[in-house]
């Protein structure tokens, strides 16, 4: 089976809401969260999706 989509990274300011297999980046505030997400998006060629204000994921499509 070919996996077409995958969560490559999780970026959050609230570490209690996340766990699991993908790399997790914990940030202090929303500003840092955005910067980290923007950088990761560019680096790993995924799209940064917002699940909530404190939780972003980078998904490879």
């Amino acid at each position: 089976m070919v996996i077409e989509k995958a969560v490559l990274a999780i970026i959050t300011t609230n570490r209690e809401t996340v766990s699991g297999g993908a790399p997790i980046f914990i940030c202090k505030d929303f500003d840092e969260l955005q910067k980290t997400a923007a950088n990761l998006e560019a680096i790993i060629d995924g799209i940064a999706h917002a699940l909530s204000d404190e939780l972003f994921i980078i998904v490879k499509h």
Partner: protein
Amino acid sequence: MNEYTMPIVFGVVVGTIARMIMLRTDYRQYPTYLHGKIIHVALGFIAASLGAVAVPAIMEMNFTAVTFLTVAATQFREVRNMERNTLSEIDDYELVSRGKAYIEGIAISFESRNYLVILTAFVGTLFYLIWNVYIAFVGAIICLIISKVLQSGSTIKDLVEIEYSPPHFDGAGLYVDNIYIMNIGLPERQEEILKYGMGFVLTPKNINVVNTIAHLGQRQAILHDVSVSLGVFRDSGTPALVPLIKRDLDDGRIGVFILPQIRDREKAINIIGAVPVLETAIRMPSKSNSRNREVN
């Protein structure tokens, strides 16, 4: 020189001219100058020769010679394969890919155009041998007109109403009208998208069209054509900036979200309207007998 020389030359010439007329570099951007064209003119010449020499072969009661037309059919099926392979290979390197359905459509048209060339050459030579060169001219011109008509299928604007509708965000969700396109997390990306993006809503005119425009290949063809004609605000490594088409499941409308470099509404509407309807996407549910029985 014998009695067949001039008719055959005539047939070959009109056939080759027919191929040249049907060979256009337009919004499809294919085939490109120069070598792509040479290949197709050369194959058109071969097709024309086959069509032209078939007539004297029949007239000389040499019926087995006509079986070489089957060789021609094999040959031109090979042309279709060639086109499909080439286009599929380069599709990975397009910023907005053509998609398999569009490639198949282009490949089919290349094959069928060679058969139209055979027909033109055949009619030209036949009329020349039966009557004279003037009637052959008339026959060839009629064939050219038929080829031209057969060559152009319907376009998107025959199927749908196209309206401009600016893209907007609801939270992280990007919408065109009420059609959800995708989730964009970063505020700076959202700003870029609002600045550069354009949205269009395509409303189907009847039930047959709903399925046709829902076809994923047809949707990709629209995106590709718009991106080729208007440019695209995108690069490798910016996967968030991607033109997309999504469908409203309730009524079958589709929301087109594009990122053109030339942001001209009228032009964009014209270009979307001029996208060819892919043969593989055409559905005719209203012609299905079992469906109509249920309805009545």
